[in-house]
């Protein structure tokens, strides 16, 4: 299982803050996971399909080609706006 978190506007638009997903052989990278989630429907496609999407793997910013492993913590969120 992996833990997938959604923050800020993504959390609101998707209506979920986080979920556990079983890792199967087809999910090898963050990009695979993103594609898998986008296939859930129009809202998912719109939100996670944004080009400005940011992602983190085990609480570190990463690029979509980052490989994922069982027990990883992944997060998707819009561009950060702190400061």
């Amino acid at each position, binding site marked *: 299982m992996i833990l997938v978190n959604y*923050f*800020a506007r993504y959390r609101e638009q998707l209506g979920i803050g986080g979920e556990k997903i079983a890792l199967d052989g087809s999910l090898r990278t963050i990009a695979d996971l993103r594609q898998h989630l986008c296939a859930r429907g129009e809202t998912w496609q719109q939100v996670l399909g944004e080009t400005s999407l940011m992602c*983190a793997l085990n609480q570190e910013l990463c690029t979509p080609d980052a490989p994922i492993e069982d027990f990883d913590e992944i997060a998707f969120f*819009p561009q950060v706006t*702190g400061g």
Partner: protein
Amino acid sequence: MPVQVQTELFDLGELTRSLHAEEPGVGAVATFVGYVRDLNQGDQVSELFLEHYPGMTERSLQQIIDRAHQRWPLQRASIVHRVGALKVGEPIVFVGVASEHRQEAFDACNFLMDYLKTHAPFWKREHTPSGERWVEGRESDQLAVNRWTA
């Protein structure tokens, strides 16, 4: 503590003093404070809510400080960022740097803010007369951080 994420207000005087207390080699302290503005993109803003990613937030701020230490000879550097509900005029963030001379203090302070704005997982939601909205990331912030890798 070089990194603090908190809901409470912070004391600027205390934070600034802590940058050079018992550090007689410090000749320069540069600080930056960001405040909640009453106007954004032409709309009146009455309040902000700051969401963050607990755990990753603290890690990312510490990493940004570590990068600044690698780049400049700094005695101390600290970041305090508030989260939760903030009213207009309240401080959001404090960044402070202590070094021997002013130039590295100014530069590192700028560097810390540029990275914080583009790499630390905080999101602002603002209250306006027409409702609440999430603040969108700015292209200018992305450009600002790119100059450090150019």
